[in-house]
């Protein structure tokens, strides 16, 4: 599961960065800020939902993947749930990215059998993990321990999360939209507007409004 969630986190960050990045470097996306935020929210929600469904799929797969699993005589329901938890947690050494429950590789079947007999002999979960790591290395653990070799693995997703958070914080702190008259490109827009006969520059509208107010004030004074 660790691999999946960090990959998901990476994808979210990349998308967040590519959408938000354009705002930060000062060019205008064609969608508005609120649209962008809505998209990001929907995307994030989608990712989380996908994560959960993948997780659920893995559980379902574990329940019915192998005939031999169905035929195992579990001593108790605790043992049964420990067995399924462990075959989901341990990785098949032959495969690049499958756990023991997913894999059809002969070695995965051997390890499931071994796992079952170790449970039967009364090994604890940690003792079973140690047994597997002693033979196949930390590769078999989908939840690798924090060592100096795995530091990057643990810190990169955190770092990406932090960067994404910073970007979103910066975005939401200073919303700058097309209608904001203080926007730094106001002047250049006006120029474009002046050239384009169909669009009236904002300053002209403001001037017209000023004139209108002045006129209103005059008539008001005249009434007095």
């Amino acid at each position, binding site marked *: 599961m660790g691999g999946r969630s960090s990959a998901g986190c990476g994808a979210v960050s990349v998308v967040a960065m*590519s959408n938000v*990045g354009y705002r930060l*470097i*000062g*060019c205008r996306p064609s969608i508005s800020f609120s649209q962008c935020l809505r998209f990001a929210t929907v995307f994030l929600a989608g990712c989380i939902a996908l994560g959960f469904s993948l997780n659920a799929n893995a559980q379902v797969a574990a329940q019915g993947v192998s005939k031999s699993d169905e035929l195992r005589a579990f001593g108790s329901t605790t043992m049964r749930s420990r067995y399924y938890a462990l075959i989901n947690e341990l990785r098949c*050494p*032959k495969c*690049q990215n499958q756990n023991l429950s997913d894999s059809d590789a*002969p*070695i995965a079947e*051997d*390890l499931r059998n*071994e796992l079952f007999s170790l449970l039967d002999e009364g090994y604890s979960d940690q003792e079973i993990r140690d047994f597997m*790591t*002693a*033979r*196949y*290395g930390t*590769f078999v653990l989908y939840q690798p321990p924090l060592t100096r070799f795995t530091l990057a693995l643990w810190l990169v997703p955190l770092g990406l999360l932090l960067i994404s958070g910073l970007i979103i914080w910066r975005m939401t702190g200073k919303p700058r939209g097309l209608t904001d008259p203080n926007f730094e490109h106001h002047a250049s827009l006006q120029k474009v507007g002046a050239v384009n006969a169909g669009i009236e520059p904002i300053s002209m509208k403001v001037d017209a409004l000023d004139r209108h107010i002045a006129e209103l004030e005059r008539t008001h004074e005249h009434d007095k």
Partner: protein
Amino acid sequence: MNARLRLFIPLLIFAVVALVFLTLEKRIGSGEYDPSNLPSAMLGQSVPAFNLSRLMDAEQVVDAEDIVGQAALLNVWATWCIACRAEHAYLNELASQGVPIFGLNYKDERAAAVQWLQRLGNPYRLNIFDFKGSLGLDLGVYGAPETYVIDAQGIIRYRHVGILDAKVWREKIEPLGLQWAVAQAQGAAL
């Protein structure tokens, strides 16, 4: 920074990422790096204890003491393994040069394995018949062929996953600096 130059930041990020992946791809292509090649967890450890029968004689028992005593190769093989067929000729060559090779016949049928050796030649000083793969599991074997380099003290010094050939011998096994008893006498043949 110039606002126009900042537009190139995404391109720059892309270039860096592309460079990383291209280098990786190149290293995989040249065989320098193989992501499916796990480092053995058994390096620096003794050959695990076992008690199995010999391939040639089901009545005869083999244990770790039978294979420890000189620098040797422990080759994991099976008749169902196509790559084992491919490396067999090189094993014969090594054996003829005097390198001690022990076989671990892994999850195989005894009759088929014996027939294979009769047909293709027998480079092994002794074959361990591991029908259930129990020694394989203790060694951390996850497929065949695999070759373990064991020194005179019975310590596992190197594990090669895949076909053993002259290149692997030259680049991986020779630099370990083990005394390959007879091979030394024959000089630079290896």
